[in-house]
């Protein structure tokens, strides 16, 4: 009987591990689901906005440690908000300076944002140095919670889960229950007609892009609790992120959530039985197989053409 309870504990922890991977994937993909899924902009620099969030958190952490050590337990919330604002502001600038001129040339956007990502990476390298840095997470995020003797759940994982839930719910409400969301969805479907019903599409585009970048910034802030930050920290995630959005079906937020969940659980469960790289192979090949059968992704809105 003892081996059974041990197996149960391992299954629970592995399941939770899958959930953490799910949260990480979803956090990254949410911003892109807005920018790529809703606006159709292929933003290769999305990972760098994540890095901006991570560095912002790092700067907050060092400043707190240096000037106000007693504020240390609380700085993290402030850092998350600031990451959102900084990444959002940079996104606003990028949309104004670059993306807004390329809406009619999607492939040029791909090249331009790729170039932008290189420029941003080099900027990080020049400012913060090539070596990875880490923000000091507040003490209450360290360690783990013991549910039973055998089951230990890390606190940063729980925090990440809460943040993901909160962010997903907020974005869902904004897209489907607010006037801004209505205007975003209208603009996506028919830019000219949206203008002709009185929507200032230029403003909507700028807001949408900035928001997507801001969400990436929040993801970056959250990532400092599980890893260190280097100039290329964000770019390693960009492929996975696009995979999640495309697999879920562009324009469907629910699809993004479901696809992040499926990919994460497949990855995490098969990692338990196979080696890490074999698990990756298995995940990717099943994604490719499903996309061959359903090129529009898991969820897509059906209307008559």
């Amino acid at each position, binding site marked *: 009987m003892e081996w059974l309870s041990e197996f149960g504990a391992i299954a629970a922890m592995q399941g939770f591990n899958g959930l953490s991977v799910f949260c990480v994937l979803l956090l990254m993909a949410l911003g892109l689901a807005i920018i790529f899924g809703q606006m159709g902009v292929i933003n290769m620099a999305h990972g760098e906005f994540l890095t901006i969030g991570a560095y912002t958190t790092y700067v907050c952490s060092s400043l707190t440690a240096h000037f106000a050590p007693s504020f240390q337990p609380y700085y993290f919330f402030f850092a998350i908000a600031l990451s959102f604002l900084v990444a959002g502001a940079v996104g606003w600038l990028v949309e104004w300076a670059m993306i807004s001129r390329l809406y009619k040339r999607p492939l040029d956007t791909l090249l331009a944002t790729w170039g932008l990502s290189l420029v941003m990476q080099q900027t990080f390298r020049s400012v913060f140095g090539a070596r990875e840095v880490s923000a000091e997470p507040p003490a209450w995020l360290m360690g783990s919670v013991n549910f039973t003797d055998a089951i230990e759940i890390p606190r940063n994982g729980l925090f990440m889960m809460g943040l993901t839930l909160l962010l997903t719910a907020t974005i869902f409400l904004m897209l489907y229950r607010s*006037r801004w969301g*209505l*205007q975003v*969805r*209208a603009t996506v*479907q*028919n830019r*000219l*007609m*949206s*203008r*002709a*019903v*009185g*929507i*200032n*599409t230029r403003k909507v585009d700028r807001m949408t892009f900035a928001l997507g970048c801001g969400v990436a910034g929040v993801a970056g802030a959250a990532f400092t609790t599980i890893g260190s930050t280097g100039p290329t920290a964000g770019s390693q995630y960009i492929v996975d992120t696009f995979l999640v959005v495309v697999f879920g079906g562009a*324009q469907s937020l629910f699809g993004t959530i479901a696809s992040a969940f499926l990919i994460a659980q497949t990855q995490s469960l098969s990692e338990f039985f196979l080696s890490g790289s074999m698990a990756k192979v298995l995940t990717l090949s099943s994604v490719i197989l499903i996309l061959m059968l359903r090129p529009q992704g898991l969820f897509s*809105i059906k*209307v*008559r*053409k």
Partner: protein
Amino acid sequence: MFKIDQLSCGYGQSQILHDLDLNVAKREIVAVMGRNGMGKTTLFKSLMGILPQWKGQVSVDGHDVSALETHERVERGIAYVPQGRMIFPSMSVLENIQTGLPASARGKVPEDLYALFPVLYDMQSRKGGNLSGGQQQQLAIARALATNPKVLLLDEPTEGIQPSIIKDIARTLKEIRNLRDLTIVVSEQVLSFTLEIADRFLVIEKGRFVIEETRDRVDEATISRYLSV
């Protein structure tokens, strides 16, 4: 009320509209008739600011809107029902109407809109793309009316719609005009439809107005000569 003065417009180097003049009074319904390729849609697009106009002026209630962007023209009281309806297919009927509402309406659709188009009330949560052609046309008109316009521009509203619904639309348009003191400019190829609603008839030929007749003096034969190919 709605005034077009020496309006010229075109694509690239080819000029389509040549110095058009038109003055539409409040509560007047004007029909712009003409064959395909004579400049009807070009006229409407340049009135909405979708195509940049080359020269001339467009004004609503004495305010010049020529330099304004499309969404600003909507704010000044021009509403547009384009050819082919162009509703937002993957949004619900309710959401389609809401896109036209000003922020002050807080997403609440005025009841007189549903009174005009009861079918839209019944289908509120249906996706716009799943409606029939006639229902989509009604939705496009309702969406335009949601912006609370002074002038309504309709580009070929009867295209591809069954005859019984065409009659409904004609009746509704007159009703809206009376309810809201609306000025309507409608482009058409179907003479029977415009004979039913219009106060004044213009025929556009190669980007120029060649015939202008009021309702009491309109000669069906002359106009249909310009419409037949």
